[in-house]
């Protein structure tokens, strides 16, 4: 699918880029209301491309994979706002309902998340310089306020650039992957691998919130409840 066939006008692309900046800022700088979580940003990306359900699905998979990386202290963690937005937009633009496009969108989101993590570290180094002259900032509090606000804006610019750099390639990759793989057996293998990866993410994510190993039966109880719900839904 060529880029021109993607159901998004110039204004739509611009909205995606601006939204990427806002979502990136939410993760760390302001206001941390968690619109930057991949579940939310993925759905927003899908919604902008006319398919919020596809965006939600990619966002939820990325969310499961991100649970293992909470922002404790100065730890490095994926920049989930732009990541989810790019992935959700890519899968929705590809029309959903394709394992190839789903995997491409997840991989794009994962890559954007970790590249974003590197840019967050670079921004933090930049903030060091911005806030370095402690004596001058203490003597002129208004300067401290200006520098702090500048740091906030630079974080938004970082997120917007990250989104602008990756959203079109991700959309193209997902659109190209529609109908992949051609073989039914390869599709089954791919789906099984994705399900296994999600199970591994769920298990690993569980330990982030658990204080020990004792809670493992609850994982199985939840899975059984899920299987019953799926069975009842037919």
């Amino acid at each position, binding site marked *: 699918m060529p880029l021109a066939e993607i159901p998004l006008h110039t204004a739509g692309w611009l909205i995606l880029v601006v939204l990427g900046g806002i979502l990136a800022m939410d993760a760390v*700088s*302001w206001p*941390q209301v*968690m619109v930057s979580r991949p579940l939310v940003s993925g759905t927003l990306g899908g919604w902008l491309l006319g398919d919020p359900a596809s965006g*939600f699905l990619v966002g*939820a998979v990325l969310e*499961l*994979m991100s649970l*293992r990386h909470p*922002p404790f202290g100065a730890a490095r963690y994926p920049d989930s706002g732009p990541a989810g937005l790019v992935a959700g937009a890519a899968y929705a633009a590809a029309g959903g309902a394709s394992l190839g496009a*789903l*995997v491409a969108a997840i*991989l794009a989101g994962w890559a954007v998340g970790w590249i974003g993590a590197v840019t967050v570290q670079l921004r933090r*180094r930049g*903030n060091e310089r*911005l*806030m370095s002259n*402690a*004596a001058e*900032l203490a003597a002129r*509090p208004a300067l*401290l306020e200006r520098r*702090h*606000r500048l*740091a*906030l804006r630079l974080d938004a610019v970082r997120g917007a650039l990250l989104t602008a750099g990756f959203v079109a390639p991700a959309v193209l990759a997902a659109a190209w992957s529609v109908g992949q793989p051609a*073989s039914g*057996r*390869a599709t*089954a293998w791919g*789906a*099984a691998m*994705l*399900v*296994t990866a*999600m*199970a*591994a*993410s769920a*298990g*690993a*994510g*569980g330990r*982030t*919130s*658990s204080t020990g*190993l004792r*809670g*493992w039966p*609850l*994982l*199985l*109880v*939840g*899975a*059984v*409840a*899920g299987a019953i*719900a*799926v069975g009842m839904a037919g």
Partner: protein
Amino acid sequence: MRPLRKDLWSAWWRSFAVQGSWNYRTMIGGGMAFTMLPLLRRIHAGDPVRLSESVARHQSAFNSHPYLAGLAAGALARAELDGESSASIERFRTALRGPLGTVGDRLIWAAWRPVCLLSAIAAFGLGVDPLWSVALFLLTFNAGHIAIRVWGFRSGWREGLGVGKALHESWLEWVPRRLAPLILFLLGLDAVLLSRSVLDVVEWNGFFGGLAAVAAFVALVAFRWPRRAGRVAAALVLAIPIAWLVVATLIG
């Protein structure tokens, strides 16, 4: 001079941006000074030297969970108003750093946020519209988020250097413990519901029971060795296109 209500509101609102200038040298030190400035300007009105000294104190290295930074900002501003010595404020800042980070991380990042996220995913898996599921997450999560920020700032401002006892309040300890089992249950539930959604994409007609057994085994192994399992999960997703190439080449 005692701060006005609008100064308190301004400081509370600014606490949402406390991590704006996060850096590896002072962490949220600059953000703390930024947050407290409306209060410090009022407290030290007409005395630029004391204002400058207090800004210097509060922009030095500090860290805390962002949602609990308001507690520290309120308490430190109260200490400035009460005329506490520079040395006792420094000691208090140092003592507060560790607990505010640990308590906040356990309560918010490891408990409250996962519960709200996983509940929203479960709602979607059970048929709720995706936009409503996202709204459910944002509303429930931020109800707790805003409540903690309000509670923290008010406690800090009310108690000053005695705010340590607010941190020892039992609910901060027991909430994460009570939520942990729910998170594990929701993780199991969501893994199955999301798997169903993925399998629907490919119109899977293979043996679901076999795949479920493998997935359950993998989840339990991952629970036991989470660090390695996280890497294995990422590697598995990365390997899917390679597996397709191999299968297509060998089998066609």
